[in-house]
């Protein structure tokens, strides 16, 4: 399944001129083994990520975004397992790789920033000694080099290196998250995966952290996959956006395009669920109903029970991803090149883009 090039898509730094994508995920599927049967948490997700690109993955609880992240980073634990597809990192398929081969990749070329720093950082070790552990695990032995690099990464994220001696509980929430990011950058990886790194932070700290990440990305050229439930947060920072629902890709395209003209009724609903602080104060509705129970596989589109634009065929046919101008949308409204008809419908609901 090919990924989509947006015409208006700005070239990210570290351009596409280079040989191939940093990460190519093809038809990746993850299932959980439960009492009642296997539950498909991630259903045939595909995308490509180029050097220096910032990809936002957006969805609510249960949509599979965190599972997808863990699958890419090869961090899945039983009862979850990858049951299909491939994750090509710099040309090599990570799925099925042994732990020893993965260690070479981990942290040097690909690192992960978890959701809550307090859960990921060791509370009884100082920041500095945790950095030292990470570096030693990857073969760096010189004490000078360790000290130097530790101080350097902390400065990069805006923390005074004196905090190498501090323990996690002595730092504020924002500083803890930053030190997690610093740790992820120790070996200047090509890809940094972030799972909701800002959700525990206040809005001001959140904003400054995002700006920091963006600046570091411009400076060091790594690609970022950023998973969040907060659509408005990624809107300013990502080039491409993937909206997930029930383990599937619901909509996928250039960020501006998905924001200005969302096409999937779920994306439209999600956009509608964010009250704005500027402009008119309008009544909003959110999305009625709740996310589906993935253990009850059904015919047809997962979103049909909650969809305001549902049609009869939606409960019979499983929609594929259909191309709509510069995006891919998993919605029967856009099937068989019904390009114009679908877009008009989406526009009629008040989310008109530049029509």
């Amino acid at each position, binding site marked *: 399944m090919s990924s989509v090039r947006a015409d208006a898509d700005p070239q990210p730094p570290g351009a596409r001129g280079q040989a191939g994508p940093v990460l190519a995920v093809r038809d990746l*599927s993850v*299932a*959980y*083994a*439960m*009492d009642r*049967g*296997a539950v498909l948490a991630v259903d045939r997700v595909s995308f490509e990520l180029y050097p220096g690109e910032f990809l936002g993955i957006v969805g609510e609880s249960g949509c599979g975004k965190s599972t997808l992240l863990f699958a890419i980073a090869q961090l899945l634990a039983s*009862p979850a*397992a*990858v*049951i*299909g*597809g*491939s994750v090509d990192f710099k040309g090599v*398929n990570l*799925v*099925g*790789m042994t732990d020893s081969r993965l260690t070479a990749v981990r942290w040097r070329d690909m690192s992960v920033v978890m959701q809550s720093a307090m859960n990921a950082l060791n509370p009884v070790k100082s920041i500095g000694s945790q950095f030292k552990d990470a570096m030693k695990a990857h073969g760096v032995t010189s004490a000078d080099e360790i000290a130097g690099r530790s101080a350097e990464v902390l400065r990069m994220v805006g923390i005074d290196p004196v905090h190498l001696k501090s323990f996690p509980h002595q730092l504020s929430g924002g500083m803890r998250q930053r030190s997690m990011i610093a740790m992820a950058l120790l070996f200047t990886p090509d890809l940094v995966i972030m799972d909701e790194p800002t959700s525990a932070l206040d809005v001001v700290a959140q904003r400054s952290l995002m700006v920091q990440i963006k600046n570091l990305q411009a400076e060091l050229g790594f690609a970022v996959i950023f998973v969040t439930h907060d659509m408005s947060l990624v809107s300013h920072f990502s080039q491409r956006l993937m909206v997930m629902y029930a383990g599937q890709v619901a909509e996928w395209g250039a960020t501006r395009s998905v924001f200005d003209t969302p096409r999937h009724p779920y994306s439209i609903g999600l956009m509608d669920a964010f009250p704005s602080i500027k402009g008119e104060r309008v*009544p*909003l*509705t*959110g999305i*009625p*109903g*709740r996310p589906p129970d993935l253990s009850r596989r059904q015919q047809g589109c997962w979103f049909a029970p*909650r969809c*305001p*634009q549902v049609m009869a065929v939606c409960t019979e046919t499983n929609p594929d991803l259909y191309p709509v101008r510069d995006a891919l949308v998993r919605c029967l409204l856009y099937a068989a090149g019904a390009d114009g008809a679908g877009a008009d419908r989406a526009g009629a*609901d008040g989310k008109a883009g530049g029509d």
Partner: protein
Amino acid sequence: MSMPISGVSTAGPAGPAGPEPATGAPAGPAAPPATRALSRMARAVRSNRKATVGAVLLGIFILVGLFPGLIAHDNPNADAYAPRLGISTAHLLGTTAYGQDMFAQVIWGTRNVLIIAFVAGLATTGIAVLVGVAAAYLGGLWDGSLSLFTDVLLVIPIFPLLIVIAAYLHGGTTIVLILVITVTSWSYTARQLRSQALSLRNRDFLAAARVRGERRLYIIVVEVIPTMTSLLVACFLTNALYAVLFASSLQFIGLGDPNTVSWGTMLYWAQNNAALQTGQPMWAIAPGACIAVLGAAFALLNYAFDEIGNPALRSVRRTRVKRAG
């Protein structure tokens, strides 16, 4: 206000666009949490193989304890037979040095052991609940003093204390044994329950109950304790197990009433008559094995409750998921 889009209302997630007319009769008070907890426990026991085995064993012992006369036809106390007989169809385990039928003794002794196990187990757990949960919820000075009291008792080694008290009371009937065991054993469980209750203390539903206007006693009894049922049952099983072991040990060293028919007293008499050395191994082995098996039954049952408390331990019968790559 929000406007429905194409007929889909924003009222809750239920299908119909509006509320359905209510059926007249009230559902009454919610099914008491006890019955619900019991069914949950039954399910846990059935689904866990170890626990099922334990339950079956315990069930057998209980049946034996309830109807000993149906199984063993001899009077356990009567010195009616020739002494030191071996195993035969007339005497399934042989006879003791005093001519008593050993099988009858084992069967009739079950009752005594079970009574001690259940009563001491319940009493120990009961006191532990009162002290532990109250200390956790009341906090402050109450917690300080109750915890101090608990900790002091905890530090004293149980078995020597048991011996001292039982000796002071000149050896004991069953009631004395139960009392002694209860008094020395409750502190460990109280500590456990206090920790658990403390972890619950900041749960919002307790603050919600307080803000609703409930009294503190109500909150402790109705809101806190029911959420701890599986831990309480697990504690009960552990305490019952230890009661069996302690009681039998006390009886073995002669601090029980030697005329009671019980497994521990059988061991006492067996020891007195050097049973193992004089070729009457059954006299020691039979009661010893029973103690071990009953203890194992309690321990096996406990596995089910471990899992209720910690779902990660559940051995799920998993559907096979073929890994890729």
